[in-house]
C-alpha cells in the first residue's frame, strides 16, 4: 500500500494522468470521496444508465477560467452549473453529468481537492450525479492550472418545445434577475479591483427555476442563459434565429449598485457582461404575467422582470430604449469587454 496522497503539500505530477497506480490513487482519494455516485464507484470505462421516458438532451461545455477561485464560486461549481444550465435551457430535467479534467503538472492537490469538493457539492445540491469522468495531466506551462469539461444529459417532457427559432413579434422578454454579477466578480478578482471585492458571481443551477416556469407557462417559446457575451449576445442570437427584432427597456434591467459602479468607472456595458445564474425567457404575451409571478416566487427568480418585447424587424436589430427615452442598438461585442483608455 502506497502512502496516502498529501492533500496539504502535494502537487499534481505527470504520473497522475499516466493510467497507473498514481492515477487510480488520485481518483480514489481525491475525486471519489467528493463525487460519490454508484456509477462512478463501479469504476468502469463508462456509466450504465437506465433508459428514461421522453426525449434526451445532451449539452457539453469546457471551462477555462482564471482565477480558479472567485467570490461566489470556483471552476468546479461553475463547471457543474454551466452544463446543467445548458441542459435546462432546452426545457430538460438533467439526470446525469460527466466530468473530464485536464490538470497542469504542479497544480497544488489542495486546490484540486477544494475544486472537486465544490463540484461534488454543486452536483449534489442540484440532485444530478456525476456518473463518469476522466483525468489527463499536461506538462507544466501547458495549461492554466486545470480545465474541466462537463457533459450533461437531460430528459424533456412531452409537449415542451423550446428553441431560439420560436420567438414571434409581440412575444414578451423576461429576465430572471440582475445582470453582470459573474463577469464583474471575475474581473474584479483578476484585476485586483479592491473597491469591487464584495461582488459575488451569480453562478447557480437553474433547472429548478425552469421546471417551475414550464408548469406556469406551457407555451414558453425559448430560454437562454446569457453567459459569455451577456444579454446582448443572447438577444442577438435569438433575433437572428427567429427572424425578429427586439426592443428592451433599460429602466427595467436591474444591476446591483457595485456592479453598476464598476461598469461605469471602467466604461463597460453590463449588457455584454457574462452571467452564470440568470436566464432570459421568451413567452407569448398571454402567458407572461403568470410566468413572471412564478419566476418571482422562486428564489433564483426573485428579481425577475419583464424587460421588453420581440418586434417585427426585417433587419433583426436589437434596440434598447435608454433611461433617457432615446434609443440605441444593442450589439454583439467584437472582443472581450475592455475598459476605456481615456
Amino acid at each position, binding site marked *: 500500500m502506497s502512502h496516502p496522497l498529501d492533500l496539504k503539500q502535494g502537487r499534481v505530477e505527470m504520473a497522475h494522468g499516466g493510467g497507473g497506480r498514481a492515477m487510480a490513487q488520485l481518483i480514489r482519494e481525491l475525486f471519489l470521496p467528493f463525487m460519490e455516485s454508484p456509477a462512478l464507484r463501479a469504476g468502469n470505462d463508462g456509466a450504465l444508465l437506465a433508459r428514461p421516458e421522453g426525449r434526451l438532451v445532451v449539452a457539453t461545455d469546457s471551462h477555462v477560467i482564471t482565477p480558479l477561485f472567485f467570490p461566489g464560486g470556483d471552476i468546479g461549481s461553475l463547471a457543474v452549473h454551466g452544463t446543467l444550465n445548458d441542459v435546462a435551457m432546452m426545457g430538460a430535467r438533467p439526470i446525469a453529468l460527466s466530468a473530464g479534467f485536464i490538470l497542469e503538472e504542479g497544480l497544488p492537490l489542495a486546490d484540486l481537492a477544494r475544486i472537486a469538493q465544490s463540484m461534488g457539492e454543486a452536483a449534489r445540491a442540484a440532485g444530478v450525479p456525476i456518473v463518469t469522468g476522466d483525468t489527463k495531466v499536461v506538462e507544466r506551462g501547458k495549461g492554466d492550472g486545470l480545465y474541466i469539461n462537463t457533459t450533461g444529459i437531460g430528459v424533456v417532457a412531452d409537449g415542451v418545445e423550446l428553441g431560439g427559432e420560436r420567438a414571434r413579434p409581440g412575444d414578451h422578454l423576461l429576465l430572471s434577475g440582475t445582470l453582470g454579477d459573474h463577469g464583474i466578480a471575475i474581473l474584479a478578482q483578476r*484585476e485586483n479591483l479592491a473597491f469591487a471585492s464584495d461582488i459575488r458571481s451569480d453562478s447557480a443551477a437553474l433547472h429548478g427555476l425552469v421546471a417551475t416556469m414550464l408548469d406556469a407557462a406551457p407555451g414558453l417559446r425559448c430560454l437562454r442563459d446569457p453567459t459569455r457575451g451577456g444579454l446582448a449576445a443572447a438577444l442577438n442570437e435569438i433575433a*437572428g434565429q427567429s427572424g425578429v427584432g427586439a426592443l428592451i427597456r433599460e*429602466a427595467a434591467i436591474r444591476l446591483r*449598485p*457595485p456592479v*453598476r*459602479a464598476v461598469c*461605469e468607472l471602467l*466604461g463597460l*456595458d453590463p449588457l455584454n457582461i457574462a452571467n452564470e445564474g440568470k436566464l432570459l425567457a421568451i413567452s407569448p404575451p398571454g402567458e407572461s404575467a403568470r410566468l413572471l409571478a412564478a419566476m418571482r416566487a422562486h428564489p433564483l427568480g426573485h428579481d425577475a422582470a419583464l424587460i421588453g418585447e420581440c418586434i417585427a424587424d426585417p*433587419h*433583426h*436589430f436589437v*434596440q434598447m*430604449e*435608454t*433611461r*433617457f*427615452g*432615446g*434609443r*440605441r*442598438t444593442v*450589439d454583439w461585442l*467584437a*472582443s*472581450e469587454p*475592455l*475598459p*476605456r*483608455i*481615456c
Partner: protein
Amino acid sequence: MKFVDEFRDGALARGLAATVAAEADPARDYTLMEFCGGHTHAITRYGLEDLLPRNIRFIHGPGCPVCVLPVGRIDNAIELARRPEVILCSYGDVLRVPASHRTSLQRARAEGADVRMIWSSLDALRIARENPSREVVFLAIGFETTTPPTAVALQQARAEGLANFTVFCNHVLTPAAIQNILESPQLRELGSVPLDGFIGPSHVSAIIGSRPYEYFAEEYQKPVVIAGFEPLDVLQAVLMLVRQINAGRFAVENQYTRAVTREGNLKAQRLVAEVFELRESFEWRGLGEVPYSALRLRPDYAAFDAERRFNIAYHAVPDARSCDCGAILRGLKHPVECKLFATACTPESPIGSCMVSSEGACSAYYSYGRHRAPESPA
C-alpha cells in the same frame, strides 16, 4: 457608490433637453464638436440625439487614443514584438488596431510574438520583474490622462534599476489637436465645415485644467464647455453652449466642476514634466503631422526609451484607401458616410482605427446607432 444613479436620472435629462429645445433658435443649426471619444460614446450609447432638437448636431472629434495612433507606429510596435527577446505590453484595444499588410498586434501574437494585454502601466513593470531575461516594452498611448501613470512606471523602473524595461512612448496632447482642427482650411477659409462650439474633454481637463482652452476660445471665437462623461453632463454642456452661442459669447465654461479646476492637477503636471519633453512634431492618424503635439522621454530617461534602445526608425504609412477615418477624426465626415461602414468594415474586422475602440466614432455608431441606418446589413 450611489453617485452613478444621480447622473442617470431620466426625468432630469428630459427636463434639460426640453430647456435646450425651448432656447435653441429654430432658424439656425448648432454644430458642436465633442473632442473626446468618451463623449461620442455617451451620446450614442444613451441615444441623446433622440432627445435633442434636430438642429443640434454633433460632430465627433479626434479624442480617441487608439484612433489617432498612426499606422507607422503600430508597424514599429509589431516589428518590436516580433523580436524573440521582446515582450510587448499594451492596453487591450491597441492590439486590434489594423496596421500595414493586414496585420495587427493581435495577429502578430497569433503568429508567435509575445504580446500581452495589460490594464495598467504597473502591470508592465511587474512583467519586467518576473521576466529578467526578456526585454519588456510598454507601448504607451493616450492623452494627458494616461501620461501620468506611464511617468509613474518610469520613475519606479529607474528607482529599481529595472534594466529590461522600456517605454515606446506615443503620448499625445489634446490642445495641439484642437488647434490643428481649428486651423484646418475647411474651417478657417472655406467655412465649408460649420463648427459653433466645443464640448471640452472630461478626464483630460482634470489633469491639464481649463486654462489651456482659453486661447482657442478667444483666438478662434468658439465657445468651449468642459463636460463630464455622464449623459446628463453632456446634455447640460449642450445647454451651456447653446446659451453662449445665442448670446454671441465664446468663453471657456466648466460644467465638470466636480473634477476640473482652472489650473488642473499640478502634481500630475509636474510628474509628467519630470519624465517627458515635447516632440517637435508627431504624426496623428487623420490629422497628419502636428507640431508640438506629443511627448517623448527626457534624456535623463534615455535608458528606458524603447526608441533609442531598439533604434526604431519611423516610416509614415498612408491609411487604408477608402477608409474615411481621417475625415471623421477632423469632423469633416460622419461615420455612416463612409462606403465601408458596416459593410467591409465592422468591429470584428476593422479596416480603420475608428472602428476599433468603443471610443471611436465608427465603432460607437456601429454598436449603438445602427438601427438609424437600416440600409446597412444586420
